[in-house]
């Protein structure tokens, strides 16, 4: 009784204690990153809060509230909700797919009347939760068995097929890479892992068939952008010019010629890092990277002190997803990766990705608050 009472008290903090345990420094870093975003959206609008910075700010405030709310909710509830959320997300992806089939064209969101829900964003979180829960419930012996890989792979493949049909290459990469990282962190045998990678090679060729012509074009353009400087390669070339001409200290706030004169495409969304690098230079770009790394580092370090495997894997899944966002985006605008349409986390204009990330941070922070909570292998409420 005593033990269970002690565990109970450790597992059940009141709301004030939880808010006190919330890492406000990380919240501040998140606000700083978002602040970078507002400033750049102000800049690319030619020095105006309209049309982007203002909207983005309001969305961020709402998202921030959601994040704190998620953070104080007990991690066991999140574990309990992992599968239901996954299947809900899968169901919504299915609905979007059917609606696309019904002739409404390529569509990625559900209009729920009061909000446009993007199921693929929802899935990024739901998949991490589902995989974390799955591995949490495995014993050591089961974890290293080959057959234990079947279910997680199915969990990954189902949404991937639906997302690729939308088609959304960026999200597909995020889901697959995030899922693989999580499986890896769960402790699957290394040789099995290498083997599955080899098995992925023919799968990649198979996936090529799934791609729409414009997606294939993007990959081909990435391989040789100068081949078609006025067409598909134009974006990458202009982005590199903007970045390179920014130099170490940049051209100055609202002074970027490439972005202000519209030579840079999609400057408020996918290519906003280019604007930062052009106007604020290498110094600006590295500062933002530094802020990102504080969050990444915090997540990785705190995960090591989490008592439950679910919590650890949840943090890792979210951190890796976050990292993939920023890595793919920045590599893409610098011409290291094809243009796949992944926004710069917390900075690019747009609500869905911001919401996903803030929910993800909420889950990381929730895990951190509840890191002492031990969860039995059978499940939180088993």
């Amino acid at each position: 009784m005593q033990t269970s009472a002690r565990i109970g008290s450790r597992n059940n903090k009141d709301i004030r204690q939880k808010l006190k345990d919330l890492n406000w420094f990380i919240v501040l870093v998140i606000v700083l990153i978002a602040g970078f975003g507002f400033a750049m959206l102000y800049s690319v609008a030619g020095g105006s809060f309209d049309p982007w910075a203002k909207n983005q700010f309001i969305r961020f405030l709402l998202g921030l509230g959601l994040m704190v709310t998620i953070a104080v909710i007990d991690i066991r509830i999140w574990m309990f909700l992992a599968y239901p959320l996954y299947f809900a997300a899968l169901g919504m992806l299915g609905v979007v797919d059917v609606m696309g089939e019904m002739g409404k064209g390529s569509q990625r969101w559900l209009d729920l009347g009061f909000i446009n829900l993007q199921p693929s964003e929802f899935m990024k979180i739901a998949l991490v939760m589902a995989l974390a829960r799955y591995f949490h419930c495995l014993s050591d012996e089961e974890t290293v068995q080959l057959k234990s890989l079947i279910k997680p792979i199915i969990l990954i493949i189902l949404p991937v097929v639906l997302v690729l049909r939308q088609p959304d290459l960026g999200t597909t990469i995020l889901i697959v890479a995030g899922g693989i990282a999580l499986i890896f962190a769960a402790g699957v045998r290394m040789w099995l892992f290498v083997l599955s990678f080899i098995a992925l090679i023919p799968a990649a060729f198979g996936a090529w068939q799934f791609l729409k012509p414009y997606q294939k074009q993007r990959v081909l353009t990435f391989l040789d952008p100068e081949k078609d400087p006025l067409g598909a390669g134009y974006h990458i070339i202009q982005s590199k010019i903007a970045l390179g001409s920014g130099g170490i200290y940049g051209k100055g706030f609202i002074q970027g010629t490439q972005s202000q004169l519209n030579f840079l495409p999609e400057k408020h969304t996918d290519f906003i890092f280019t604007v930062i690098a052009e106007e604020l230079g290498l110094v600006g770009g590295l500062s933002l990277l530094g802020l990102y790394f504080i969050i990444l580092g915090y997540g990785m370090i705190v995960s090591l002190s989490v008592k439950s495997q679910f919590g650890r894997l949840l943090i890792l899944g979210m951190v890796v997803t976050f990292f993939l966002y920023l890595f793919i985006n920045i590599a893409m605008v610098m011409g290291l990766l094809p243009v796949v349409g992944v926004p710069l986390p917390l900075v690019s204009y747009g609500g869905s990705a911001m919401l996903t990330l803030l929910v993800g941070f909420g889950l990381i922070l929730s895990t951190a608050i509840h890191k002492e909570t031990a969860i039995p292998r059978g499940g939180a409420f088993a």
Partner: protein
Amino acid sequence: MKPSDKNKLKSYTRRATLISGGMLLLSSALVGRMYYLQVTSRNQYELLAERNRISMRLLAPTRGDVLDRYGRAIATSTTDYRVNVIPEETEELEETLEALKQYIPISENNNKRIMKAAKKQRSFLPISVANNLDWETFSNVNVNMPDLPGIQPDVGTSRFYPEKELGAHLVGYVGSVSEEELTGEPLLELPEFKIGKNGIEKVLDEKLRGSAGNSKVEVNVLGRVIRELSRQDSVPGEAARLTIDLEIQKFAATRTQHESAAVTVMDIHTGELLAVTSTPSFDPNDFNNGISQVKWDKLRGDIRKPLINKAVSGQYSPGSTFKMIVALAGLEAGVITVEDTKICNSQFRIGKNIWHCWSKGGHGKLNVIQALAQSCDVYFYDLARKVGIEKIHEMSARFGLGERFNIGIMSEARGINPNDDWKFGRTGEHWYGGDTVNVGIGQGFVSTTPLQLAVMTARLANGGKAVVPKIFIDDDNDNDIDIEEVEGLGISQENLDIVLQGMIDVYNHPRGTAFRYRLRKDDYQFGGKSGTTQVTRISTAERNSEGGVIKNEEKDWIGRDHALFVGYGPVENPKYAVSVLVEHGGGGGSVASPIARDVLEFVLERDKSNENIGQSV
């Protein structure tokens, strides 16, 4: 903690470290790439960014004017009031155009063209709605700008020839640059740029053109100008001043307006050309924006050849105006003297060949002065035969016949000053005696331009000096030519005076061919020489037929004789020479001499009034 959990944490820690390492590795690739782009390759990308944003706009210079000797413009650049529309700035393009119709008429076609252009080009680029507006219309539009969103009044320059037809053959015209005229000079590639296509506009194109300025502007990706970064203004072209006096030009052109004619007036001492007219003419303003096919076809098809400058490009048999040359050749060679006479019985024979005098009854006994005054053909058949073609050829050359002076207007013809060499080279046959007989009266192979005839007359009247015609006033040099320095032709004044007396008698002796057309005032006396040249050969059959030679009035215009006259005045102190050509005009005495007389009188009167107001040339 359960052992299973411990194992899981241990395994997790290991794998999480590996993943962190992987993320760090990937991140360092990002940082490396950033360093490469922003530090290592910075200069290269900076250059590319500048090339993106900076655009050089050429500023066209204002074309230099072409002025007459008193500074009156023959060709100038005028402010062109235009109205453009920028579709982007209108609420509805159709409505704006409709509103604009209150002030400017816009035709259905023009309306269609604007709507079509608006669909084709970027919406911030102006589309021309109307140009050449008068000031009142233009200011009306300006005042009502608030009601006309998107309408942009614009002030440009365009070439303008205020005197229209007058001087068109000298000044030529401008037009758009053709493919072949591109030299790599960027100015020529400006869409609205015009270059000289003909006449002085073409010959002096580079001087008139000026040099381009440029404006360095910042543009956005669509090419819209955001701001001007720097500017170097264009340098306007230099003006060209002509020796032409527009008043004289106008008088001469008006005097011959119903004819196909050419009048050349020259200062006999300086060689300055005061008037060079050719009628009918054309309006060079029509060429500015490309002449319409209908107008062009009309000009090209006109048998009076309005596009040709007959004064310098037209080549005609000099006819009897050539007789001074033959007379001088005879006098200088000592073949004749002023005392020698010859009897004209209307015919001249060599073997079986017969040449006729224009006077059917013959002139009777004549000396050289009388032969000139009455223009006896037989006298000059005979004299030419005696003197020989080579001496005539040599004398012609001294008086500038067969010579191209390169005065600086286009298509100056050389004419033909024939001799044996010339004929052999041309036809492979040697010169015959009969050829000389024809040349004796300015027919046959000899051919001259009205300009050459004016030069010849000037050289006769100025005491045998080799004055050269000129049409430009060179601002760099002192324009007052030292008359003493003009080279002499080496002809005795005595012989010159004999010939000049003949010319004086043409107007002033009762038997002179132009006596009826002399100036019936005591103010001035003029000298001159008429010439009537056959366009078609008179056949023996025609000559012997009942009606005799068909009269000019009974022929088609194209079959009639050319009328020529060369004159100078005043006889006591000669100043000006004039040559008149009237194509198919009929008799040189009856048609061309009154024109020469009127022009000479006008020039001298104008001289007098200029002196009176102390504005001497």
